[in-house]
């Protein structure tokens, strides 16, 4: 690797910054990023960011969406080249020209969206791009050993080696992705929202693995929106805001409130909004509902003016329950009743019944990211978007900006493709779609997954307004059914919570009688756990 040129080319700001932020970091850090600058056209993404990670520490990188975390990590991985600043790995200059150069130097990135080939086996995925070869042929024995070793280090059974990846659960795939980084002998491991699709027990398992790797001297950069998690696992933190480092230090010395204040630049109180609500008439009745394989048996009554949460482990059938209620998955037994009418319904009929759904999978199901903001928001209800049953852009734009204002969604033009918006703004559009369709029953599947604190607070506030009927529009209170793997959220906003286990839905219990411990016990005990990462056969 070429020797880095002297610091003289870097901006004064970066040099000045370095002194105060990194003064307490010894020069022996495993990874040292100094004064990183990056522009995209007229947009300044990074304006002098510093990051120092020691060997054997978990370093949390915190910031709202758009603060520059992803850009910084793309520069670290070699996907982007910085416009200014230096990077060092173990004291040597580190200038990756491509992601593969970054990997070869020992920087492994585990992205939020998994980057594995679903049709290949686990072993092929682990060795992909770095297959041990003699001549043009793959050295099968060596590949097997590499895979076995890597799987062992992430706590997965070696029997999974020859299983096609698509047969694994999300949690297992995530671990395979990490195993790939481990197989390459990484020195710096970057985990970008690793728990966003994991259940609580899988998260615990991942954390114990992270602690093990830390003890073995690996440097780990941990990115997450779930601050409780970060407080639990990280040793040190760096907070980014608007492309600058606004704070760094030892995790022990700060509280959650301090970090939130650093992230948003002001104090956020009342993350979970809760106005007094009065449950009204029953609008959704589910009795003994069964689907293809999940759910097995679910009964539930949902009233106007209340928020009911569904907790449970990944694979317990919560998503399938909501999909079956909405008509996306077939009903095999039992009934769904909405406002006096009996199902089964198709999604089209459900929208007409006044039921709307937000999908857990924003990218592949929730939104058409190549289509415009206006098209995405108005798709369920295009009637009334123009004279004589036509659809005009002016009406679409008017409807879009109305809801965008209510949810403070930021975009340049209603006809801009969704691609360019941040995750938080995209998710708010998925929710605004329900408001546009003027629904009475909201089925929300992981509505705040992977989005920043500011957007989360706005979404909680909106849900509360809808359920209590206190919004600016005169409308009756809505009924909300919300699935979430994040318990503080459920406890914070719901009136009642039901726990789902192995396809069966428990009784919805008033939230006052519950706490995280009780919910987890009910979700994971009794019988065997619903999912167990790394054990047994693939799902």
């Amino acid at each position: 690797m070429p020797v880095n040129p002297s610091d003289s080319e870097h901006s004064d700001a970066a040099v000045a910054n370095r002194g105060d932020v990194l003064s307490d970091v010894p020069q022996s850090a495993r990874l040292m990023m100094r004064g990183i600058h990056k522009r995209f056209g007229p947009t300044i993404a990074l304006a002098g960011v510093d990051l120092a990670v020691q060997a054997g520490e978990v370093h949390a990188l915190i910031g709202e969406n758009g603060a520059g975390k992803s850009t910084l990590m793309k520069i670290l991985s070699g996907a982007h080249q910085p416009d200014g600043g230096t990077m060092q790995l173990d004291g040597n200059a580190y200038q990756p020209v491509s992601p593969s150069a970054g990997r070869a130097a020992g920087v492994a990135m585990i992205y939020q969206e998994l980057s594995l080939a679903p049709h290949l086996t686990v072993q092929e995925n682990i060795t992909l791009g770095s297959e041990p070869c003699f001549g043009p042929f793959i050295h099968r024995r060596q590949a097997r050993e590499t895979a076995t070793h890597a799987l062992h280090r992430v706590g997965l059974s070696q029997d999974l080696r020859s299983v096609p990846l698509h047969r694994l659960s999300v949690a297992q795939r995530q671990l395979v992705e990490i195993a790939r980084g481990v197989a390459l002998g990484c020195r710096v491991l970057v985990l970008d929202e690793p728990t966003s699709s994991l259940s609580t027990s899988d998260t615990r398992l991942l954390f114990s693995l992270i602690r093990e790797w830390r003890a073995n001297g690996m440097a780990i950069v941990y990115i997450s929106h779930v601050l409780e998690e970060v407080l639990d696992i990280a040793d040190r933190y760096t907070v980014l805001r608007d492309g600058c480092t606004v704070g760094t230090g030892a995790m022990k010395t700060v509280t959650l409130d301090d970090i939130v204040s650093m992230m948003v630049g002001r104090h956020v109180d009342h993350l979970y909004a809760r106005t007094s609500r009065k449950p009204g008439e029953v609008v959704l009745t589910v009795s003994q509902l069964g689907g293809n394989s999940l759910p097995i048996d679910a009964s539930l009554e949902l009233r106007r003016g209340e928020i009911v949460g569904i907790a449970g482990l990944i694979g317990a059938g919560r998503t399938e329950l909501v999909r079956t209620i909405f008509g996306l998955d077939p009903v095999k037994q039992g009934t769904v009743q909405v406002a006096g009418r009996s199902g089964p319904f198709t999604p089209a009929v459900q929208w007409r019944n006044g039921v709307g759904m937000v999908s857990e999978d924003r990218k592949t199901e929730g939104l058409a990211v190549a289509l415009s903001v206006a098209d995405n928001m108005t798709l369920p209800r295009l009637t009334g978007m123009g004279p004589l049953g036509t659809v005009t852009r002016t009406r679409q734009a008017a409807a879009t900006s109305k809801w965008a204002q209510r949810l403070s969604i930021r975009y340049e033009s209603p006809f801009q493709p969704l691609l360019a918006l941040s995750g938080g703004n995209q998710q708010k559009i998925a929710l605004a779609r329900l408001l546009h369709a003027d629904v009475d029953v909201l089925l929300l599947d992981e509505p705040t997954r992977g989005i920043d604190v500011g957007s989360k607070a706005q979404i909680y506030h909106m849900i509360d307004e809808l359920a209590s009927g206190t919004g600016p529009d005169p409308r009756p209170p809505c009924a909300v059914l919300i699935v979430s793997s994040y318990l503080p959220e459920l406890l914070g906003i719901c009136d009642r919570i039901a726990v789902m286990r192995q396809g069966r839905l428990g009784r919805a219990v008033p939230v006052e009688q519950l706490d995280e411990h009780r919910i987890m016990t009910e979700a994971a005990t009794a019988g065997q756990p619903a999912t167990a990462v790394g054990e047994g056969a693939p799902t």
Partner: protein
Amino acid sequence: MTSSSRNTPANRFTSLLLSWMNQLGPVLGLACVWVFFAVVEHRTAQASGLQPSFMSWHNQLLILLQTAVVGTAAIGATLIIISGGIDLSVGSTIALVTMVVAWLLRIGMPAPFAAFGGIYAGVICGLIIGSAVIGHLGRCAAIAAGVVLGAWAFWLGAGVIGTIVIIAVVSFVLFQLDRRFIPNVKLAPFIVTLGMWGVLRGVAKGFGNSQPIYPGSDSWLSNLMHDTPFGMKGLPVYGVWLLLIVAGLAVLVLKFTRFGRHVYAVGSNEQTARLCGVHISRTKMMIYGIGIGCAGLAGLLQFSFLQMGDPSTAEGYELKVIAAVVIGGASLAGGEGSIIGTLVGALIMSVIDSGCGALHLDNWIQEVVTGIIIVLAVAIDRLRRRRIEP
């Protein structure tokens, strides 16, 4: 990073300019190709002492005439490609329709009936393809069997009403059987239309024992591609006007109707469309019915151009049609595409044909040039998009 930081007046102007460029891109490409041939042909003609012909009004009319068939079919294909599908059977559909129209005229049907029959044949082909795409193989059989039995009954002298009753009964019974007994197997449009490419061509050939069918008598239907409105020689022929009307309707449908928005939504992300309550199978049936109905109309024009039914006509048109749509800025992955772009794409190919002809270039050169233009057009399109959406 933040969206607001880009909203300066200067940037807004640039983005407005870029969006204009985006709309005009294919048109500029067409102008470039036309000017290139005009200049080159003018020079070479002058050098050899001949009268340059490429720029003449007569030649422009010829270019339009040659665009009519491919253009009409390409409008239907645009719908299909925007929805994420593809139609490889266009050429075979056109050939079959020329046969149907010629046959109907020969057995003494009035011209409007024959015209309707031709378009109807196209729509039926579309519904069969649509049924297979949404997974109802049985429905294909139902439609096909209904049509065949109906035709047979008609042949035996069942009369028009009897024929319709027979088609309805047979189709209904088979539809019910399909619903009860045949599992739903969704097929990729590529596979379905690849199959139909062979099936329809074969049916067209079988229709006339591999021989062309001559309509026998002369009618307005045979002159759509030869006569001009009011007999004015300076105007394009009826077929070109028909193309423009269909294009205008398609623009309105895509831009201003729920169905149009649903076409884009299904192509962009089918799962999202389903989540939002779009009836996927109904929308797809409509897309293939209308889209391949356009191919039926193109077949009508082709019949008029040839003045006979020819089972081996329009071979390779499927690729010309797809090329026109793609040059016009549509994405084969779905979700993007425009009617105006497609028209321009079809015109670009006609201009190349005409230009190469005027330069007396060999056919093979023309094919090479067309191939290069297709790849180049799409490459330029991608580049342009990248500048607009960083």
